[in-house]
Protein backbone atom coordinates (compact mmCIF):
# COMPACT_ATOMS: atom_id res chain seq x y z
CA UNK A 1 0.00 0.00 0.00
CA UNK A 2 1.12 3.57 -0.62
CA UNK A 3 0.63 5.96 2.23
CA UNK A 4 1.47 9.16 0.41
CA UNK A 5 -1.13 11.48 -0.97
CA UNK A 6 -2.63 10.55 -4.35
CA UNK A 7 -3.03 12.83 -7.33
CA UNK A 8 -6.42 14.00 -6.27
CA UNK A 9 -5.28 14.93 -2.82
CA UNK A 10 -6.50 11.86 -0.98
CA UNK A 11 -4.95 9.51 1.52
CA UNK A 12 -7.13 6.47 0.99
CA UNK A 13 -10.66 7.68 1.83
CA UNK A 14 -9.44 10.85 3.45
CA UNK A 15 -8.37 14.27 2.32
CA UNK A 16 -9.60 16.19 -0.70
CA UNK A 17 -10.49 19.83 -0.82
CA UNK A 18 -13.98 20.49 0.47
CA UNK A 19 -13.89 24.22 0.20
CA UNK A 20 -16.35 26.96 -0.56
CA UNK A 21 -16.06 28.23 -4.11
CA UNK A 22 -14.78 31.54 -2.71
CA UNK A 23 -11.58 29.75 -1.72
CA UNK A 24 -11.20 27.86 -4.96
CA UNK A 25 -8.82 30.28 -6.70
CA UNK A 26 -6.51 30.51 -3.67
CA UNK A 27 -6.36 26.80 -3.04
CA UNK A 28 -6.11 26.02 -6.71
CA UNK A 29 -3.26 28.48 -7.13
CA UNK A 30 -1.45 26.66 -4.36
CA UNK A 31 -2.25 23.23 -5.69
CA UNK A 32 -0.96 24.09 -9.11
CA UNK A 33 2.24 25.66 -7.86
CA UNK A 34 3.36 24.05 -4.65
CA UNK A 35 5.17 21.16 -6.23
CA UNK A 36 6.95 23.13 -8.92
CA UNK A 37 7.91 25.98 -6.60
CA UNK A 38 9.22 23.71 -3.88
CA UNK A 39 11.08 21.61 -6.43
CA UNK A 40 12.84 24.68 -7.77
CA UNK A 41 16.57 24.55 -6.89
CA UNK A 42 16.46 28.18 -5.87
CA UNK A 43 13.63 27.57 -3.43
CA UNK A 44 15.31 24.47 -2.09
CA UNK A 45 18.53 26.34 -1.53
CA UNK A 46 16.87 29.17 0.34
CA UNK A 47 14.71 26.77 2.36
CA UNK A 48 17.67 24.61 3.33
CA UNK A 49 19.79 27.63 4.14
CA UNK A 50 17.18 29.16 6.43
CA UNK A 51 16.58 25.84 8.15
CA UNK A 52 20.30 25.69 8.76
CA UNK A 53 21.27 29.21 9.82
CA UNK A 54 18.00 30.47 11.19
CA UNK A 55 16.12 27.49 12.58
CA UNK A 56 19.25 25.67 13.72
CA UNK A 57 18.94 22.48 11.69
CA UNK A 58 19.89 19.70 11.60
CA UNK A 59 18.38 19.15 15.02
CA UNK A 60 20.27 16.46 16.90
CA UNK A 61 19.20 12.85 17.18
CA UNK A 62 19.97 12.33 20.82
CA UNK A 63 20.50 8.91 22.34
CA UNK A 64 18.74 9.04 25.71
CA UNK A 65 21.04 6.96 27.83
CA UNK A 66 19.26 6.95 31.16
CA UNK A 67 15.84 6.41 29.63
CA UNK A 68 17.19 3.62 27.45
CA UNK A 69 18.67 1.90 30.45
CA UNK A 70 15.48 2.15 32.44
CA UNK A 71 13.30 0.76 29.64
CA UNK A 72 15.92 -1.62 28.36
CA UNK A 73 15.70 -0.53 24.74
CA UNK A 74 17.47 1.97 22.46
CA UNK A 75 15.70 5.31 22.71
CA UNK A 76 16.51 8.29 20.53
CA UNK A 77 14.99 11.76 20.74
CA UNK A 78 14.70 13.84 17.60
CA UNK A 79 15.32 17.24 19.12
CA UNK A 80 12.78 19.51 17.46
CA UNK A 81 12.58 21.28 20.82
CA UNK A 82 15.86 22.94 19.85
CA UNK A 83 14.37 24.62 16.79
CA UNK A 84 14.14 28.38 16.82
CA UNK A 85 10.85 29.33 18.53
CA UNK A 86 10.75 26.05 20.40
CA UNK A 87 9.03 23.44 18.25
CA UNK A 88 8.90 21.78 14.85
CA UNK A 89 6.22 24.25 13.73
CA UNK A 90 8.78 26.63 12.26
CA UNK A 91 9.94 24.13 9.61
CA UNK A 92 6.57 24.57 7.98
CA UNK A 93 6.28 28.32 8.38
CA UNK A 94 9.70 28.84 6.78
CA UNK A 95 8.59 26.77 3.81
CA UNK A 96 5.26 28.52 3.47
CA UNK A 97 6.62 32.05 3.77
CA UNK A 98 9.06 31.35 0.93
CA UNK A 99 6.20 29.94 -1.11
CA UNK A 100 4.01 32.94 -0.31
CA UNK A 101 6.76 35.28 -1.45
CA UNK A 102 7.05 33.46 -4.74
CA UNK A 103 3.30 33.69 -5.20
CA UNK A 104 3.59 37.44 -4.69
CA UNK A 105 1.57 37.54 -1.49
CA UNK A 106 1.84 40.61 0.69
CA UNK A 107 -0.07 39.57 3.75
CA UNK A 108 -0.04 36.46 5.91
CA UNK A 109 -2.77 35.04 8.09
CA UNK A 110 -2.63 32.08 10.42
CA UNK A 111 -4.63 30.36 13.11
CA UNK A 112 -3.16 29.24 16.39
CA UNK A 113 -4.22 27.30 19.45
CA UNK A 114 -1.40 27.10 21.96
CA UNK A 115 0.33 29.89 20.12
CA UNK A 116 3.30 27.86 18.87
CA UNK A 117 2.25 28.04 15.26
CA UNK A 118 1.29 31.67 15.72
CA UNK A 119 4.73 32.46 17.07
CA UNK A 120 6.40 30.50 14.29
CA UNK A 121 4.35 32.40 11.71
CA UNK A 122 4.91 35.81 13.31
CA UNK A 123 8.62 34.94 13.36
CA UNK A 124 8.98 34.24 9.65
CA UNK A 125 6.87 37.29 8.84
CA UNK A 126 9.18 39.48 10.91
CA UNK A 127 12.12 37.84 9.16
CA UNK A 128 10.70 38.74 5.77
CA UNK A 129 9.09 42.02 6.73
CA UNK A 130 5.59 40.88 5.80
CA UNK A 131 2.35 41.84 7.54
CA UNK A 132 1.03 39.11 9.80
CA UNK A 133 -2.36 38.53 11.37
CA UNK A 134 -2.88 35.61 13.70
CA UNK A 135 -6.33 34.41 14.69
CA UNK A 136 -6.57 32.92 18.13
CA UNK A 137 -9.56 31.92 20.22
CA UNK A 138 -10.41 34.46 22.87
CA UNK A 139 -10.16 31.76 25.49
CA UNK A 140 -6.74 30.63 24.25
CA UNK A 141 -5.53 34.23 24.30
CA UNK A 142 -6.19 34.22 28.00
CA UNK A 143 -4.71 30.77 28.56
CA UNK A 144 -1.52 31.32 26.59
CA UNK A 145 -0.49 34.84 27.51
CA UNK A 146 3.27 34.34 26.98
CA UNK A 147 2.85 33.24 23.39
CA UNK A 148 0.46 36.13 22.74
CA UNK A 149 3.15 38.46 24.05
CA UNK A 150 5.75 36.78 21.83
CA UNK A 151 3.60 37.31 18.74
CA UNK A 152 3.14 40.95 19.63
CA UNK A 153 6.86 41.38 20.27
CA UNK A 154 7.35 40.01 16.77
CA UNK A 155 5.03 42.64 15.36
CA UNK A 156 2.06 40.42 14.53
CA UNK A 157 -1.52 41.41 15.12
CA UNK A 158 -3.37 38.87 17.24
CA UNK A 159 -7.10 38.86 16.46
CA UNK A 160 -9.42 37.17 18.92
CA UNK A 161 -11.86 34.59 17.55
CA UNK A 162 -15.01 35.26 19.48
CA UNK A 163 -17.34 32.79 17.86
CA UNK A 164 -18.20 29.25 18.92
CA UNK A 165 -16.12 27.89 21.75
CA UNK A 166 -13.47 30.58 21.24
CA UNK A 167 -10.63 28.10 20.76
CA UNK A 168 -8.53 26.68 17.92
CA UNK A 169 -11.39 25.38 15.82
CA UNK A 170 -12.97 28.83 15.77
CA UNK A 171 -9.69 30.57 15.13
CA UNK A 172 -9.37 28.35 12.07
CA UNK A 173 -12.84 29.36 10.92
CA UNK A 174 -11.94 33.01 11.34
CA UNK A 175 -8.72 32.61 9.41
CA UNK A 176 -10.58 30.93 6.57
CA UNK A 177 -13.11 33.78 6.59
CA UNK A 178 -10.29 36.27 6.38
CA UNK A 179 -8.87 34.40 3.43
CA UNK A 180 -12.24 34.38 1.71
CA UNK A 181 -12.38 38.13 2.19
CA UNK A 182 -8.83 38.66 0.95
CA UNK A 183 -8.40 36.22 -1.88
CA UNK A 184 -5.72 37.97 -3.89
CA UNK A 185 -2.90 39.32 -1.76
CA UNK A 186 -3.12 37.01 1.23
CA UNK A 187 -1.58 33.63 1.96
CA UNK A 188 -2.98 31.50 4.73
CA UNK A 189 -0.26 29.58 6.59
CA UNK A 190 -1.97 26.55 8.09
CA UNK A 191 -0.08 25.11 11.05
CA UNK A 192 -0.60 21.40 10.72
CA UNK A 193 -1.31 18.66 8.18
CA UNK A 194 -4.96 19.65 8.05
CA UNK A 195 -7.14 21.69 5.73
CA UNK A 196 -7.89 21.24 2.04
CA UNK A 197 -5.44 19.62 -0.33
CA UNK A 198 -2.64 20.59 -0.95
CA UNK A 199 -2.12 21.74 2.64
CA UNK A 200 -1.73 18.35 4.31
CA UNK A 201 0.78 17.24 1.73
CA UNK A 202 2.56 20.58 1.58
CA UNK A 203 2.97 20.82 5.35
CA UNK A 204 4.06 17.18 5.51
CA UNK A 205 6.73 17.83 2.89
CA UNK A 206 8.10 20.80 4.80
CA UNK A 207 8.15 18.75 7.99
CA UNK A 208 9.66 15.79 6.17
CA UNK A 209 13.09 17.25 6.92
CA UNK A 210 12.67 15.59 10.32
CA UNK A 211 12.79 12.05 8.97
CA UNK A 212 15.20 13.01 6.23
CA UNK A 213 17.72 13.95 8.93
CA UNK A 214 16.76 11.00 11.10
CA UNK A 215 17.76 8.66 8.29
CA UNK A 216 21.36 9.77 7.99
CA UNK A 217 21.66 10.36 11.69
CA UNK A 218 20.63 6.79 12.44
CA UNK A 219 22.96 5.57 9.73
CA UNK A 220 25.78 7.29 11.61
CA UNK A 221 24.94 5.94 15.05
CA UNK A 222 23.23 2.61 14.34
CA UNK A 223 24.65 1.67 10.98
CA UNK A 224 21.17 1.46 9.45
CA UNK A 225 19.03 4.33 8.34
CA UNK A 226 15.73 3.20 9.83
CA UNK A 227 14.51 2.54 13.36
CA UNK A 228 12.17 -0.19 14.52
CA UNK A 229 9.63 2.27 15.84
CA UNK A 230 8.79 5.92 15.31
CA UNK A 231 6.60 7.56 17.92
CA UNK A 232 4.99 10.98 17.92
CA UNK A 233 2.10 12.84 19.47
CA UNK A 234 -0.65 14.04 17.22
CA UNK A 235 -2.73 17.17 17.38
CA UNK A 236 -3.34 17.92 13.74
CA UNK A 237 -0.39 15.67 13.02
CA UNK A 238 2.42 17.74 11.55
CA UNK A 239 5.26 16.66 13.80
CA UNK A 240 4.17 13.06 13.39
CA UNK A 241 3.94 13.47 9.62
CA UNK A 242 7.46 14.88 9.62
CA UNK A 243 8.92 11.99 11.56
CA UNK A 244 7.03 9.32 9.64
CA UNK A 245 7.39 10.82 6.18
CA UNK A 246 10.31 8.86 4.77
CA UNK A 247 9.26 5.71 6.60
CA UNK A 248 5.60 5.67 5.57
CA UNK A 249 6.11 2.98 2.96
CA UNK A 250 8.91 1.19 4.80
CA UNK A 251 7.13 -1.65 6.55
CA UNK A 252 10.18 -2.44 8.67
CA UNK A 253 9.31 0.67 10.63
CA UNK A 254 6.43 0.42 13.06
CA UNK A 255 4.46 3.63 13.59
CA UNK A 256 2.99 4.55 16.94
CA UNK A 257 0.82 7.64 17.20
CA UNK A 258 -0.14 9.09 20.54
CA UNK A 259 -3.23 11.20 20.95
CA UNK A 260 -4.59 13.05 23.98
CA UNK A 261 -7.23 11.27 26.04
CA UNK A 262 -7.71 14.36 28.19
CA UNK A 263 -9.67 13.37 31.27
CA UNK A 264 -10.19 9.91 29.82
CA UNK A 265 -11.67 8.58 26.59
CA UNK A 266 -15.08 8.09 28.12
CA UNK A 267 -15.10 11.31 30.11
CA UNK A 268 -16.58 13.47 27.39
CA UNK A 269 -13.49 15.64 27.78
CA UNK A 270 -10.82 14.31 25.47
CA UNK A 271 -9.16 14.73 22.12
CA UNK A 272 -8.92 11.05 21.33
CA UNK A 273 -9.79 11.28 17.66
CA UNK A 274 -9.03 7.70 16.70
CA UNK A 275 -11.06 6.28 19.53
CA UNK A 276 -13.93 8.71 19.18
CA UNK A 277 -13.67 10.27 15.75
CA UNK A 278 -15.87 9.61 12.78
CA UNK A 279 -15.47 10.38 9.14
CA UNK A 280 -16.08 14.06 8.80
CA UNK A 281 -15.66 17.01 6.55
CA UNK A 282 -14.14 19.92 8.39
CA UNK A 283 -11.83 22.77 7.54
CA UNK A 284 -11.70 21.65 3.96
CA UNK A 285 -10.96 17.96 4.12
CA UNK A 286 -12.48 14.62 4.88
CA UNK A 287 -10.89 13.13 7.94
CA UNK A 288 -11.53 11.67 11.38
CA UNK A 289 -13.03 14.06 13.85
CA UNK A 290 -15.02 14.10 17.02
CA UNK A 291 -18.61 15.15 16.41
CA UNK A 292 -22.15 14.77 17.65
CA UNK A 293 -24.41 12.14 16.04
CA UNK A 294 -25.94 15.12 14.29
CA UNK A 295 -22.69 16.11 12.58
CA UNK A 296 -21.83 19.13 14.67
CA UNK A 297 -18.16 19.36 15.61
CA UNK A 298 -17.46 18.56 19.26
CA UNK A 299 -15.25 20.74 21.43
CA UNK A 300 -12.19 18.68 22.30
CA UNK A 301 -10.37 18.77 25.60
CA UNK A 302 -6.74 18.22 26.50
CA UNK A 303 -4.51 19.80 29.14
CA UNK A 304 -2.17 20.39 26.23
CA UNK A 305 -3.41 23.22 24.04
CA UNK A 306 -1.54 21.89 21.01
CA UNK A 307 -3.43 18.59 21.08
CA UNK A 308 -6.73 20.29 21.86
CA UNK A 309 -7.99 19.84 18.28
CA UNK A 310 -11.03 17.71 17.52
CA UNK A 311 -9.49 15.83 14.62
CA UNK A 312 -6.37 14.62 12.92
CA UNK A 313 -5.15 15.37 9.43
CA UNK A 314 -6.24 13.01 6.60
CA UNK A 315 -2.85 11.27 6.44
CA UNK A 316 -3.29 10.12 10.02
CA UNK A 317 -6.93 9.18 9.47
CA UNK A 318 -5.68 6.91 6.72
CA UNK A 319 -2.80 5.51 8.77
CA UNK A 320 -5.33 4.68 11.47
CA UNK A 321 -7.99 3.22 9.21
CA UNK A 322 -5.46 1.10 7.33
CA UNK A 323 -3.84 0.02 10.59
CA UNK A 324 -0.47 1.18 9.29
CA UNK A 325 -0.13 3.11 12.56
CA UNK A 326 -0.94 1.96 16.03
CA UNK A 327 -2.83 4.61 18.00
CA UNK A 328 -2.52 5.11 21.75
CA UNK A 329 -4.62 7.52 23.81
CA UNK A 330 -2.93 9.02 26.86
CA UNK A 331 -4.76 10.92 29.60
CA UNK A 332 -3.58 14.26 30.99
CA UNK A 333 -2.16 12.78 34.14
CA UNK A 334 0.17 10.31 32.46
CA UNK A 335 1.37 12.98 30.08
CA UNK A 336 2.11 15.38 32.90
CA UNK A 337 4.01 12.71 34.82
CA UNK A 338 6.09 12.07 31.72
CA UNK A 339 6.87 15.75 31.51
CA UNK A 340 8.44 15.45 34.93
CA UNK A 341 10.15 12.14 34.20
CA UNK A 342 11.83 13.37 31.04
CA UNK A 343 12.95 16.52 32.86
CA UNK A 344 14.52 14.61 35.69
CA UNK A 345 15.98 11.73 33.72
CA UNK A 346 17.30 13.56 30.68
CA UNK A 347 17.33 17.23 31.61
CA UNK A 348 14.82 18.03 28.90
CA UNK A 349 11.57 19.75 29.87
CA UNK A 350 9.23 18.79 27.05
CA UNK A 351 6.13 20.53 25.80
CA UNK A 352 3.09 18.81 27.25
CA UNK A 353 2.17 17.76 23.70
CA UNK A 354 5.52 16.04 23.41
CA UNK A 355 5.24 14.46 26.84
CA UNK A 356 2.22 12.49 25.62
CA UNK A 357 4.40 10.62 23.13
CA UNK A 358 6.71 9.24 25.80
CA UNK A 359 3.85 7.57 27.61
CA UNK A 360 4.07 4.97 24.85
CA UNK A 361 6.98 3.56 26.87
CA UNK A 362 4.54 2.47 29.55
CA UNK A 363 1.87 1.32 27.14
CA UNK A 364 4.14 -0.82 24.97
CA UNK A 365 7.12 -3.15 25.43
CA UNK A 366 10.21 -2.67 23.29
CA UNK A 367 13.05 -5.14 22.85
CA UNK A 368 16.57 -4.45 24.12
CA UNK A 369 17.94 -4.32 20.58
CA UNK A 370 15.10 -2.30 19.15
CA UNK A 371 15.67 1.27 18.07
CA UNK A 372 12.87 3.62 19.06
CA UNK A 373 12.82 7.19 17.79
CA UNK A 374 10.61 9.72 19.56
CA UNK A 375 9.84 13.07 18.10
CA UNK A 376 10.70 15.54 20.83
CA UNK A 377 8.44 18.01 19.08
CA UNK A 378 8.76 21.00 21.38
CA UNK A 379 10.09 22.38 24.60
CA UNK A 380 8.08 22.99 27.73
CA UNK A 381 8.85 26.66 28.32
CA UNK A 382 5.41 27.63 27.07
CA UNK A 383 3.86 25.13 29.48
CA UNK A 384 5.58 26.19 32.66
CA UNK A 385 2.47 27.75 34.16
CA UNK A 386 0.57 24.52 33.63
CA UNK A 387 3.40 22.46 35.11
CA UNK A 388 3.68 24.84 38.07
CA UNK A 389 -0.05 24.64 38.74
CA UNK A 390 -0.20 20.91 38.28
CA UNK A 391 2.81 19.93 40.37
CA UNK A 392 2.55 22.84 42.80
CA UNK A 393 6.17 23.75 42.04
Amino acid sequence: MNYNVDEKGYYGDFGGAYIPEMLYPNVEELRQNYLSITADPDFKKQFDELLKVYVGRPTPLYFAKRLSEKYNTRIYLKREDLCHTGAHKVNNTIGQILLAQRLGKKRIIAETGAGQHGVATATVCALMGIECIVYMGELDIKRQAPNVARMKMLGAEVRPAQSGSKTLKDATNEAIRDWINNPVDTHYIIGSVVGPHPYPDMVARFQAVISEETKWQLEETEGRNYPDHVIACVGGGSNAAGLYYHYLNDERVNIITVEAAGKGIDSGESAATSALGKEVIIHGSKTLLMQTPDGQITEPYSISAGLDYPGVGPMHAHLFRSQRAEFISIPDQEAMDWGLTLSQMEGIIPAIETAHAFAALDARKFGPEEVVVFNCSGRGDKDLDTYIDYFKL
Partner: protein
Amino acid sequence: MNRIDQKFKGDKKLLSIYFSAGYPNLEDTVPVLKKLQVAGVDMVEIGLPFSDPLADGPTIQESSTQALRNGMNTEKLFSQLDGIRKEIEIPLVLMGYFNPMMQYGIEKFCQRCESIGIDGLIIPDLPVDVYHEHYKTLFDQHGLYNMFLITPQTSDKRIRYIDQVSNGFIYMVSSASVTGAKNTFGKTQTDYFQRIQKMELNTPTVVGFGISNAETYQAATKESRGAIIGSAFIKFLKEKGVENIPEFIQSIRD
Protein backbone atom coordinates in the same frame (compact mmCIF):
# COMPACT_ATOMS: atom_id res chain seq x y z
CA MET B 1 -40.96 20.86 -13.70
CA ASN B 2 -38.88 21.89 -10.69
CA ARG B 3 -40.45 24.86 -8.90
CA ILE B 4 -37.17 26.73 -9.29
CA ASP B 5 -37.23 26.50 -13.07
CA GLN B 6 -40.82 27.64 -13.04
CA LYS B 7 -39.87 30.73 -11.10
CA PHE B 8 -37.19 31.66 -13.56
CA LYS B 9 -39.56 31.57 -16.51
CA GLY B 10 -40.22 35.05 -17.76
CA ASP B 11 -38.25 38.17 -16.90
CA LYS B 12 -39.33 38.96 -13.39
CA LYS B 13 -36.52 39.91 -11.01
CA LEU B 14 -36.66 37.51 -8.11
CA LEU B 15 -36.22 38.12 -4.40
CA SER B 16 -35.00 35.24 -2.31
CA ILE B 17 -34.58 35.23 1.44
CA TYR B 18 -32.15 33.22 3.54
CA PHE B 19 -32.72 32.49 7.20
CA SER B 20 -31.48 29.96 9.72
CA ALA B 21 -33.94 27.24 10.59
CA GLY B 22 -35.00 27.36 14.22
CA TYR B 23 -34.20 31.05 14.60
CA PRO B 24 -34.99 33.17 16.55
CA ASN B 25 -36.90 30.38 18.29
CA LEU B 26 -36.86 26.69 17.57
CA GLU B 27 -40.43 26.61 16.31
CA ASP B 28 -40.17 29.76 14.19
CA THR B 29 -39.11 27.93 11.00
CA VAL B 30 -42.56 27.37 9.60
CA PRO B 31 -44.08 30.70 10.72
CA VAL B 32 -41.18 32.53 9.05
CA LEU B 33 -41.77 30.59 5.82
CA LYS B 34 -45.44 31.45 5.85
CA LYS B 35 -44.81 35.12 6.45
CA LEU B 36 -42.27 35.23 3.65
CA GLN B 37 -44.68 33.69 1.19
CA VAL B 38 -47.41 36.07 2.24
CA ALA B 39 -45.03 39.01 1.89
CA GLY B 40 -44.39 37.93 -1.67
CA VAL B 41 -40.86 36.64 -1.75
CA ASP B 42 -40.11 34.37 -4.65
CA MET B 43 -37.95 31.77 -3.04
CA VAL B 44 -36.48 30.83 0.34
CA GLU B 45 -33.17 29.36 1.42
CA ILE B 46 -33.58 27.55 4.71
CA GLY B 47 -30.30 27.40 6.57
CA LEU B 48 -29.49 24.11 8.28
CA PRO B 49 -27.33 25.31 11.15
CA PHE B 50 -23.74 24.08 11.58
CA SER B 51 -21.24 24.50 14.38
CA ASP B 52 -18.51 25.73 12.04
CA PRO B 53 -20.05 27.78 9.24
CA LEU B 54 -16.81 28.99 7.74
CA ALA B 55 -18.28 30.73 4.70
CA ASP B 56 -20.56 32.89 6.81
CA GLY B 57 -20.09 36.25 8.43
CA PRO B 58 -20.89 37.09 12.04
CA THR B 59 -24.66 37.62 11.65
CA ILE B 60 -25.40 34.25 10.13
CA GLN B 61 -22.89 32.55 12.38
CA GLU B 62 -24.67 33.91 15.40
CA SER B 63 -28.11 32.91 14.19
CA SER B 64 -26.69 29.48 13.43
CA THR B 65 -25.24 29.12 16.90
CA GLN B 66 -28.50 30.32 18.44
CA ALA B 67 -30.49 27.84 16.40
CA LEU B 68 -28.25 24.99 17.56
CA ARG B 69 -28.67 26.14 21.11
CA ASN B 70 -32.41 26.20 20.55
CA GLY B 71 -32.18 22.50 19.70
CA MET B 72 -32.25 22.60 15.92
CA ASN B 73 -30.81 19.64 14.06
CA THR B 74 -31.32 17.83 10.77
CA GLU B 75 -34.05 15.49 11.93
CA LYS B 76 -35.83 18.28 13.75
CA LEU B 77 -35.85 20.46 10.65
CA PHE B 78 -37.25 17.67 8.51
CA SER B 79 -40.01 17.03 11.00
CA GLN B 80 -40.85 20.74 11.07
CA LEU B 81 -41.04 20.75 7.28
CA ASP B 82 -43.10 17.57 6.96
CA GLY B 83 -46.32 18.55 5.24
CA ILE B 84 -45.06 22.05 4.43
CA ARG B 85 -46.15 21.74 0.82
CA LYS B 86 -49.76 21.95 1.96
CA GLU B 87 -49.09 25.57 2.77
CA ILE B 88 -46.05 26.79 0.92
CA GLU B 89 -45.82 26.92 -2.83
CA ILE B 90 -42.68 28.95 -3.49
CA PRO B 91 -39.42 27.07 -4.14
CA LEU B 92 -37.60 25.92 -1.01
CA VAL B 93 -33.88 25.46 -0.99
CA LEU B 94 -31.94 23.93 1.89
CA MET B 95 -28.62 25.62 2.48
CA GLY B 96 -26.11 23.93 4.76
CA TYR B 97 -22.65 22.54 5.17
CA PHE B 98 -21.85 19.09 3.93
CA ASN B 99 -20.90 17.42 7.18
CA PRO B 100 -24.31 17.27 8.89
CA MET B 101 -25.76 15.91 5.64
CA MET B 102 -23.05 13.28 5.41
CA GLN B 103 -23.65 12.21 8.98
CA TYR B 104 -27.38 11.96 8.34
CA GLY B 105 -26.57 9.83 5.33
CA ILE B 106 -26.67 11.51 1.94
CA GLU B 107 -29.12 9.08 0.42
CA LYS B 108 -31.53 9.27 3.33
CA PHE B 109 -31.07 13.03 3.29
CA CYS B 110 -32.09 13.22 -0.35
CA GLN B 111 -35.09 10.95 0.21
CA ARG B 112 -36.36 13.13 3.03
CA CYS B 113 -35.89 16.27 0.93
CA GLU B 114 -37.80 14.74 -1.93
CA SER B 115 -40.65 13.55 0.25
CA ILE B 116 -40.96 16.98 1.86
CA GLY B 117 -40.84 18.75 -1.44
CA ILE B 118 -37.51 20.53 -1.19
CA ASP B 119 -36.46 21.82 -4.60
CA GLY B 120 -32.76 22.18 -4.25
CA LEU B 121 -29.68 22.49 -2.12
CA ILE B 122 -26.85 24.90 -1.65
CA ILE B 123 -23.83 23.29 -0.01
CA PRO B 124 -20.99 25.82 0.13
CA ASP B 125 -18.28 23.32 1.04
CA LEU B 126 -19.18 20.66 -1.50
CA PRO B 127 -17.09 21.58 -4.54
CA VAL B 128 -18.65 21.22 -7.92
CA ASP B 129 -16.15 18.59 -9.06
CA VAL B 130 -16.81 16.30 -6.10
CA TYR B 131 -20.53 16.77 -6.55
CA HIS B 132 -20.31 16.02 -10.21
CA GLU B 133 -18.34 12.86 -9.69
CA HIS B 134 -20.02 11.42 -6.62
CA TYR B 135 -23.43 12.89 -5.89
CA LYS B 136 -25.09 14.30 -9.00
CA THR B 137 -26.76 11.06 -9.98
CA LEU B 138 -28.25 10.66 -6.55
CA PHE B 139 -29.53 14.24 -6.45
CA ASP B 140 -31.00 13.88 -9.90
CA GLN B 141 -32.80 10.68 -8.87
CA HIS B 142 -34.51 12.60 -6.13
CA GLY B 143 -35.29 15.58 -8.26
CA LEU B 144 -33.02 17.81 -6.23
CA TYR B 145 -31.18 20.70 -7.80
CA ASN B 146 -27.77 21.69 -6.50
CA MET B 147 -26.78 25.29 -6.87
CA PHE B 148 -23.18 26.48 -7.00
CA LEU B 149 -21.45 29.69 -6.12
CA ILE B 150 -19.21 31.80 -8.28
CA THR B 151 -17.18 34.82 -7.20
CA PRO B 152 -15.35 37.69 -8.91
CA GLN B 153 -12.25 35.51 -8.73
CA THR B 154 -13.81 32.54 -10.50
CA SER B 155 -12.25 32.10 -13.93
CA ASP B 156 -14.38 32.12 -17.07
CA LYS B 157 -13.41 28.56 -17.72
CA ARG B 158 -14.62 27.43 -14.35
CA ILE B 159 -17.81 29.43 -14.69
CA ARG B 160 -18.54 27.60 -17.94
CA TYR B 161 -17.95 24.30 -16.19
CA ILE B 162 -20.24 25.27 -13.33
CA ASP B 163 -22.84 26.47 -15.81
CA GLN B 164 -22.74 23.09 -17.42
CA VAL B 165 -23.10 21.07 -14.21
CA SER B 166 -25.67 23.44 -12.68
CA ASN B 167 -29.36 23.45 -12.71
CA GLY B 168 -31.70 25.93 -11.05
CA PHE B 169 -29.54 28.97 -10.78
CA ILE B 170 -25.97 30.06 -10.24
CA TYR B 171 -25.35 31.83 -6.98
CA MET B 172 -23.21 34.85 -7.79
CA VAL B 173 -21.33 35.90 -4.70
CA SER B 174 -21.26 39.69 -4.97
CA SER B 175 -17.68 40.04 -3.83
CA ALA B 176 -15.13 37.58 -2.65
CA SER B 177 -16.18 37.63 0.95
CA VAL B 178 -18.14 35.84 3.59
CA THR B 179 -21.81 36.68 3.99
CA GLY B 180 -22.74 39.99 5.57
CA ALA B 181 -24.84 43.01 4.78
CA LYS B 182 -23.29 45.95 2.92
CA ASN B 183 -24.86 49.26 1.95
CA THR B 184 -23.71 49.78 -1.62
CA PHE B 185 -21.87 48.04 -4.38
CA GLY B 186 -18.74 49.53 -5.89
CA LYS B 187 -17.46 49.57 -9.43
CA THR B 188 -15.72 46.20 -9.02
CA GLN B 189 -19.04 44.56 -8.29
CA THR B 190 -20.94 46.11 -11.15
CA ASP B 191 -18.10 45.31 -13.57
CA TYR B 192 -18.27 41.73 -12.38
CA PHE B 193 -22.05 41.58 -12.75
CA GLN B 194 -21.68 42.87 -16.31
CA ARG B 195 -18.91 40.45 -17.14
CA ILE B 196 -21.09 37.51 -16.14
CA GLN B 197 -24.06 38.99 -17.94
CA LYS B 198 -22.02 39.11 -21.12
CA MET B 199 -21.08 35.44 -20.79
CA GLU B 200 -24.71 34.57 -21.59
CA LEU B 201 -24.81 31.49 -19.40
CA ASN B 202 -27.44 28.78 -19.74
CA THR B 203 -28.28 28.92 -16.08
CA PRO B 204 -29.84 32.06 -14.64
CA THR B 205 -27.80 33.94 -12.07
CA VAL B 206 -28.84 35.26 -8.70
CA VAL B 207 -26.69 37.62 -6.66
CA GLY B 208 -26.07 36.99 -3.00
CA PHE B 209 -23.87 38.29 -0.15
CA GLY B 210 -23.99 41.96 0.78
CA ILE B 211 -27.55 42.79 -0.23
CA SER B 212 -29.26 44.75 2.48
CA ASN B 213 -31.66 47.33 1.05
CA ALA B 214 -33.56 48.53 -1.99
CA GLU B 215 -30.45 50.14 -3.47
CA THR B 216 -28.27 47.05 -3.41
CA TYR B 217 -31.20 44.90 -4.48
CA GLN B 218 -31.72 47.14 -7.49
CA ALA B 219 -28.06 47.14 -8.40
CA ALA B 220 -27.78 43.38 -8.02
CA THR B 221 -30.80 42.54 -10.12
CA LYS B 222 -29.88 44.95 -12.88
CA GLU B 223 -27.59 42.42 -14.52
CA SER B 224 -29.01 39.24 -12.99
CA ARG B 225 -32.25 37.44 -12.46
CA GLY B 226 -32.55 37.92 -8.77
CA ALA B 227 -30.97 38.50 -5.40
CA ILE B 228 -30.70 36.67 -2.11
CA ILE B 229 -30.81 38.51 1.19
CA GLY B 230 -29.51 36.81 4.32
CA SER B 231 -27.73 38.81 7.01
CA ALA B 232 -29.90 41.92 6.64
CA PHE B 233 -33.02 39.80 6.98
CA ILE B 234 -31.71 37.99 10.03
CA LYS B 235 -30.81 41.28 11.71
CA PHE B 236 -34.33 42.51 11.02
CA LEU B 237 -35.79 39.28 12.39
CA LYS B 238 -33.81 39.64 15.57
CA GLU B 239 -34.90 43.22 16.10
CA LYS B 240 -38.47 43.29 14.83
CA GLY B 241 -39.66 39.70 15.08
CA VAL B 242 -41.52 37.31 12.79
CA GLU B 243 -44.71 39.42 12.78
CA ASN B 244 -43.13 42.32 10.94
CA ILE B 245 -41.51 40.40 8.10
CA PRO B 246 -43.71 42.04 5.41
CA GLU B 247 -42.32 45.43 6.42
CA PHE B 248 -38.81 44.22 5.54
CA ILE B 249 -39.82 42.73 2.20
CA GLN B 250 -41.62 45.93 1.28
CA SER B 251 -38.60 48.05 2.07
CA ILE B 252 -36.57 46.04 -0.44
CA ARG B 253 -39.09 45.97 -3.20
CA ASP B 254 -40.30 49.57 -3.13
